[in-house]
Each structure stands twice: as C-alpha cells, then as structure tokens.
C-alpha cells in the first residue's frame, strides 16, 4: 500500500479538477461533495493502512521512499554545467504517516460536516473543489521527498487558504483577510525561499533523504550555513504556522467559513510550519542558534497569543489565538529538542482543535453570531455540541486522561530539561490556556442566555454536522493515551537526536501532577470570573486594568505595525513610480528633447514645432533661449546666408596665416 502513497495527494487533486470543471455550479448537484468525500474516505483508508504498516514495522526499508524524475535541468558544479535530475516522489516516515492520517481524517470529517454547514451556498461545488485542492496540496506537502515540491505544495496550500478565507468574497472583510493571510505568509516564505536557495548552494540537492545524509557528514554543513538555513525555514514556518511576529493573519483568517478554519487554520495547514521544521530537523540539529531561535519564537508566541485570547469575545478568534498559542507550544518543543513531543502535540491538537472549531461552527450555525457576549446558556439547546466541545476543552487544558494531557506533559517535560525559565513561562501559558478555554465554554454554554432572541432560535445542528464532532471527541479522549502508550508514538516517529542535544535532565516526577493541579486552579479561577453568571468581577478587573486590556485587544500593536509597513511600502511604491515617470523618463525624453532643441536652435531654422504637440518634454523648456538664438539668424535672408560663406572664406585665409 505504501508504494501507492502517491495516490493520496493525487486523487484529491484530480477530484478537485473534476469537480471544478465537470460539475454544474447552479444545480446544487449532490454529487460534487460526495465525490470529494468518497475520495477522502479512500485516502483515509489508505493512510490508515500505511499507518498500520508503519507502526507494525511491515515496511522495509523504513522510512519508505519512492522517487521518480520530475524533470532534469542544467545545474552547475564547480563552474561546469551538467544535467541534474529533479526528483519528485514520496517519503513516508513516521511523522508523515501520522500526518497523513490526521490530514485525511480531519479533512474527511470537515467535508462531511460541511454538507450541513455549507448547505445552500451558491458556490457549494466550488467549495468542495477548493477543499479537495487544499487537501491534495497539504498531503503533497506531507509526503513529498523533495523540498522544492514541498515548497510548491506549501505555496499551494497558501493559495487554497487564500481562496477559502476569501470564499465569501462579496463581503469586504473576507476579501481583505484572504489577501492579508496570503501576503503575511508570503513574507515568511521569502525566508524559506532564501533557505531553499542556500540549501541548493550547500547541498546541490533538494531530496530530503540526501540532505539528511549530507548534513550528517562532517564538513558539509557549516554552523553558519545551518543557522542561516534554519532561520530561513523558521521564517517560513512562522508565516505559515502564524508565529510571532507573523501571527497577525490568523485571527483575521477566521472570516472564512468555519469548517475551513477547522481544517486549515487549526488542524492542518498551520501545522505545516511545525511539520516542515520537523522534516528539516537535521539542519537545526547542526545549529544550536537556530534551535534556540525556534524555541524562543515558539515560547513568545505561545505566551502572547494566550494573553490575547483572554480578552477576545469572538468565539472563533479565541480559538484562533488558542491555535497560535498551541502552535507556539509545538515549536517551542521542537526548539528544545522535543521532536517527538512537538509532533505528538501536533497530532492531538489537530483532533481537539478541529473539534473546537467545528463545535464553534455548530454554535455559529445555530445562533448566527460569533460574539460570545450574545450567547450563553446554550448547553441546554445544544447538548451534543456542548458535550463534545467540553471534552475538547478539557483536552486542550491538559486534564488527564484527555489527549492534551499527554502531549502537553511531554512538551513541558522536554522544555524543563532544556531550560527551566522557559519551562516556567510555558507552564504559565498552559495555565492561561486552561483559563481562556474555560472562559469560552462558560460564556458560550453556561449561565443565562444573554440574547433571548438568538437563544430562542438556537437549535442543535443536524446530525451530519454532529457525528464528526462525536468522532473527534472520541479521538480527543483516547488518542493521547493510545499513542503515548508504551512510547508508541516516539517509536513511530523515531528521530534520533545527535548526542549534543540529548539533554537527559529528567523532570521531577511530581511535575505532571503539579501542573495538572495548577491547571485545575486556573479553571477554577475562570469559573470564578465567568462561570457564575456574574461578570462584575471580570468587569471591574477590566476597568481597573484597562490599559493592559486595550493592549491585548489591539494585539500588542502588531497589526498596526504591519499596517504601517504596508502603508510605508505603498509610499515607497508611489515614490518609485514618481521617480520613474518624473525623473528617469523625463531625463531621457526631456534630455533628448533638450539636445534636440539646442541643436535646432543652433542650426537656427525652425518655425513650427511639430514636436510640441507630440513630445511632452519639449513644452517645459525655456523659450527665451530660443528667441535669443533665433534673433541671431533671421529667416530667408540671402545676404545673411552669404555671410556664412564669407565667414568661411575668411576662416580659410586665417587657416593659411597659421601655416
């Protein structure tokens, strides 16, 4: 099965084309989604089989790599050109196997969920085409054995994200958000682009397996180069995974349909950055600086995003900040040498965050608003949604035995081993997580209904939307324990760090319990503020700390910085164009015009300027010089012309004199 893994990205891609070109837009044909869902189901099955094969060690050699020639091109080596092959192929290792399952599963569930959520949308078919296209690109990114192809898919997921965020493009906000998302990630991609160039310059190959071998060979990769490449990739990852300082696009990306947010901006695409860092871990292994940078970026992001989530009222925004924060956890783990921990959290987080988003979608579908202040008390109206979301919240908060407990614990353990200040900060972020997640739950589902009208019309979503929730809830409960069992996950992804990074400072045994206790305290605090149907305390706190609140609500001003950056670049562009049209162009046109005019004045005979009607440059030139020169030679006067001849004669005689 694994040798046909190329089908996994290929089929959705073809299906997206089929849907786009062969299905009718207006007919609300039910086949388009079913075709997509069926394909995704097939992909899931295949992924599960591969996962099974991988976990049972049935694949030899492992990791599996299948490679074909994409094209061959002219390459250089020491000033000599030669024909080099650019491979395209699949590389299935543990991380890929896990990611395949996660992506296909979430995608399948989201597609099913969307049957209900997107029902009746005028661009229903196109939605499915985009989803399939996105999934194909994402899967391509996961399985590719070639960094160039990975980058290609990386960009393609960006485009599908662009298309899906801006799916309801008639509204200005999604249109703007989609552009912002694309541009911000593109900014990060510039770093990745340079990193790719550096990789080629250093290794002369993009094949990941080859790179890994070369990187391990002493002398090939200098620490400086490794740092540069590592930072470049980090740049790309920061863009895609919405890390500080490029996280600004993710909250805005919530303008897209909620299932899309669940799929792209929670479970899969945003994880691509983490995945890429993991895939190129061998480079970071060669550069402690890059590694440290990864860790700190992750940590900063985790903290900042968590604080921002504290004050958000838009349910999807809360989840978006939470996502950013959790991605920061993962990155921090990777930066601390926690390869397994990072990927493990990636996996579990995919399940419960997708669940949270889908649940939020269900809520929004029901009450038609995103604003939590207009919700409240929905638990009675939407018990299934509430139940599943509560499970997810427990999971993300890291309560035993839910999935998040295991992965977060692994991360903290790892970070503790690496740097205890970091550990402290990260633990704080974890506490904040629990706080704001429960704040969300309390505001949404608990207490009184604050908007009776909306509450009255609220209803449980159809089952087509609910059973994906249930399935995800199930996974949120069991996946952590199951995967962590006997080091199953660690064995599966199986990355051996170089000796230097193996910091075996074991965390105290009591640490998990202590953290859990603290988390519980945080939840209790959250209940104290928001769970009692009495917000006076929260309000007074807000009033007292209003500067802090406004900083948080303004996202620490990062949005403003980026806006001013955009404005600045616009100004530069305007200046460049002014320079182009008024300086360079004028220099040539007017310069030419000036020369022409001077020559014409000197040659002395002109009346009517064909020119001044056509060449704009002539108009601005001074006429005074013309008048002056012209008065020297008037027109048509025979004897003045004869004078020239006489002058020539006298010049000749002087010439004779000089001899």
């Amino acid at each position, binding site marked *: 099965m694994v040798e046909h893994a190329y089908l996994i990205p290929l089929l959705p891609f073809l299906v997206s084309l089929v849907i786009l070109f062969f299905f009718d837009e207006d007919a609300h044909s039910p086949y388009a989604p079913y075709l997509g869902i069926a394909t995704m189901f097939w992909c899931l099955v295949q992924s599960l089989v591969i996962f099974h094969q991988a976990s049972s060690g049935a694949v030899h050699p492992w990791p599996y790599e299948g490679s074909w020639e994409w094209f061959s091109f002219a390459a250089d080596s020491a000033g000599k050109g030669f024909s080099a092959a650019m491979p395209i192929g699949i590389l299935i290792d543990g991380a890929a196997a896990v990611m395949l399952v996660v992506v296909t599963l979430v995608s399948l569930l989201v597609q099913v969920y969307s049957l209900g959520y997107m029902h009746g949308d005028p661009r229903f078919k196109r939605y499915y085409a985009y989803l399939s296209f996105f999934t194909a690109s994402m899967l391509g990114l996961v399985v590719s054995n070639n960094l160039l192809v990975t980058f290609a898919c990386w960009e393609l997921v960006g485009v599908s994200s662009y298309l899906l965020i801006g799916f309801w493009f008639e509204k200005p906000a999604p249109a703007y958000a989609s552009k912002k998302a694309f541009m911000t990630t593109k900014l990060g991609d510039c770093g990745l682009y340079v990193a790719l160039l550096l990789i080629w310059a250093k290794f002369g190959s993009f094949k990941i397996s080859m790179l890994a071998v070369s990187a391990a060979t002493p002398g090939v990769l200098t620490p400086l180069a490794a740092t540069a490449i590592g930072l470049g990739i980090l740049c790309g990852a920061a863009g895609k995974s919405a890390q500080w300082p490029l996280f600004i696009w993710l909250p805005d990306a919530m303008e897209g349909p909620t299932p899309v947010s669940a799929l792209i901006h929670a479970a899969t695409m945003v994880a691509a950055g983490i995945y890429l860092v993991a895939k190129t871990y061998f480079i970071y292994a060669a550069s402690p600086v890059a590694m440290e940078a990864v860790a700190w970026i992750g940590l900063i992001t985790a903290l900042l995003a968590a604080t921002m989530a504290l004050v958000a009222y838009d349910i999807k925004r809360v989840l978006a900040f939470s996502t950013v924060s959790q991605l920061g956890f993962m990155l921090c783990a990777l930066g601390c040498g926690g390869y397994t921990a990072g990927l493990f959290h990636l996996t579990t987080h995919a399940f419960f965050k997708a669940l949270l988003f889908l649940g939020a979608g269900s809520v929004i579908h029901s009450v038609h608003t995103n604003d939590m202040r207009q919700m409240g008390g929905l638990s009675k109206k939407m018990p299934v949604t509430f139940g599943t979301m509560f499970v997810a919240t427990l999971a993300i908060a890291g309560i035993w035995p839910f999935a998040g407990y295991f992965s977060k614990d692994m991360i903290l353990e790892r970070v503790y081993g690496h740097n205890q200040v970091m550990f402290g900060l990260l633990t704080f972020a974890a506490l904040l997580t629990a706080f704001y997640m429960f704040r969300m739950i309390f505001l949404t589902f608990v207490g009184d209904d604050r908007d009776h009208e909306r509450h009255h019309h609220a209803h449980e979503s159809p089952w087509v939307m609910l059973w994906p929730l249930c399935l995800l809830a199930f996974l949120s409960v069991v996946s952590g324990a199951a995967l962590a069992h006997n080091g199953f996950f660690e064995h599966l992804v199986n990355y051996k760090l170089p000796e230097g990074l193996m910091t075996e400072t074991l965390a105290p045994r009591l640490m998990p319990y202590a953290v859990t206790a603290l988390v519980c305290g945080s939840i209790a605090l959250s209940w104290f503020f928001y769970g009692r149907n009495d917000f006076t305390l929260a309000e007074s706190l807000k009033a007292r700390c209003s500067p802090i609140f406004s900083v948080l609500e303004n996202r620490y001003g990062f949005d403003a910085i980026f806006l001013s950056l955009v404005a600045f670049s616009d100004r530069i562009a305007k200046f460049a164009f002014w320079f182009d049209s008024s300086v360079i162009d004028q220099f040539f046109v007017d310069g030419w015009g000036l020369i022409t005019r001077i020559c014409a004045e000197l040659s002395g005979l002109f*009346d009517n300027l064909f020119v001044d009607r056509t060449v704009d440059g002539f108009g601005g030139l001074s006429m005074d010089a013309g008048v002056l020169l012209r008065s020297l030679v008037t*027109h*048509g*006067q*025979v*004897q003045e012309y004869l004078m020239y001849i006489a002058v020539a*004669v006298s010049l000749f005689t002087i010439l004779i004199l000089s001899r």
Partner: protein
Amino acid sequence: MTLAHYLTLSGLLFLIGIFGALTRRNIIGILMSIELVFNAANINLAAFNHFRHPGGVAGQAVALFFITIAAAEVVVGLALVLAIYRNTDTVYVEEFSLLKG
C-alpha cells in the same frame, strides 16, 4: 612692378566685391559686386600668367572663359530680376520673404 602689386590690387578688388555682395540691398548691386569678384579673379589669372607662367597662355584663356561665364550669369540674373520685379515689384532682397525655413 612686381606680382605682389597685382595680387594686392586683385585682393582688394575681391574684398570690395565681397563687401558689396554682403551689404548691397539691391539685387543689381549684388550682381555688380559679384562682377567685381570675377574681375579680381581675372586680374589674378593675367598676372600669374605674366609673372609666373609666361610660357603658356592658359591663364589668359581661363580668364576669357570667366569673362564669358560672368556675362552669361549677368544675363540670367538680370532676366530673373526682371521676372521677379514683375511679380513682386521690388528689387530689394530682404523683401523676398515667401520662403522661410
């Protein structure tokens, strides 16, 4: 008398002719000045023939040609003056201003 005397004479005549051609406003005046230039050339020819190349008569022959050609030019010129006088009623060169660059 040396050749220098004759050359001085012809040179002065030449310059007077040039001056006249440059300054006379009347076409016929210009024409007459041009005749002076021709005569200067002829004096040159005759003088050179006499002083430097006494063996032949080429100089005189050329002078004879010049005289004839000058005559032909005068004829055409005067005819043109007549024609243009009929058209424009003037013989002053500055007054010809139909053609301008």
